[in-house]
């Protein structure tokens, strides 16, 4: 029997070898590709047309962004470890890793708040110039996704450590992990686009 047939036999409501929840998050991430991708392409084309915006781009803090990259990459590691703990049926370890991930997300947002306050103190607002409009729109949209991830991951971390019926929720760790890795992927491209080039 094929893998797909096996899956439909075990779970009659699933028509593919991929569980429905995971299929759903991949559809969501596909739509996010168009959201972030469209914004990034607009930024690249507008920047090429304007001739580079180098004079404005050198005001952004590469150091803060590099620290944030380390934080986000580390949080990707911790959430994949949470998923590994779920597979190993280690509820406490999964909960700890989920809460560490949420904490790292909070660190990212604090660094981002510090970065924004630094730009504001130099009178660099979204309406100052097109570069700054793109800068705040792209990093702000990404920040909102990080914020959403922190809430969900923190909630599941609390469920794993202090909640009841964890067995009903533990499979969702993989799904929220995929979302979090996607947020990391977006940052991997935002970082060189906005801060390095």
């Amino acid at each position: 029997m094929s893998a797909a047939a096996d899956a439909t036999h075990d779970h009659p409501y699933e028509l593919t070898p991929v569980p429905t929840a995971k299929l759903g998050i991949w559809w969501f991430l596909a739509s996010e590709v168009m959201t972030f991708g469209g914004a990034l392409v607009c930024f690249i084309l507008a920047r090429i047309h304007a001739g580079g915006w180098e004079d404005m781009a050198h005001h952004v803090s590469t150091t803060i962004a590099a620290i944030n990259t380390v934080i986000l990459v580390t949080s990707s590691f911790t959430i994949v470890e949470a998923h590994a703990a779920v597979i190993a049926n280690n509820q406490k370890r999964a909960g700890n890793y989920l809460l560490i991930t949420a904490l790292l997300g909070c660190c990212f947002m604090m660094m981002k708040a510090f970065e924004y306050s630094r730009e504001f103190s130099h009178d660099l607002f979204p309406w100052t110039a097109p570069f700054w409009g793109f800068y705040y729109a792209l990093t702000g949209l990404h920040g909102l996704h990080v914020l959403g991830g922190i809430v969900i991951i923190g909630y599941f971390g609390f469920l794993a450590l202090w909640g009841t019926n964890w067995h009903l929720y533990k499979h969702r760790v993989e799904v929220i992990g995929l979302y979090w890795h996607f947020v990391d992927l977006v940052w991997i491209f935002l970082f060189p686009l906005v801060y390095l080039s």
Partner: protein
Amino acid sequence: MSDHAEHHGPSYITIWYILIGLLGLGLLGMGIGNKYLAIGFIFLIAIVKAILVGRYYMHLKTEASIVYVIFFVPVLLLFVLAFLLVPDIIYRPS
């Protein structure tokens, strides 16, 4: 990856070390004298990092083909749409 699947290949911490190393390499790339070469190098590093995250952290390495179809068709579409806009940018008077 299903709950029953095992993790093969480099450990997650090894991937983390590589990602941090690549971040350092990308920062060093800013020092390349030629602007276009530097940008090319920095984005090459970003693509390698994205492949590592996708392949090992998102487990695309062991994922069913339907996931590739769902995720990579919009990526392809994005490149097509971006390419269609390029003439508008190139031939537009500044």
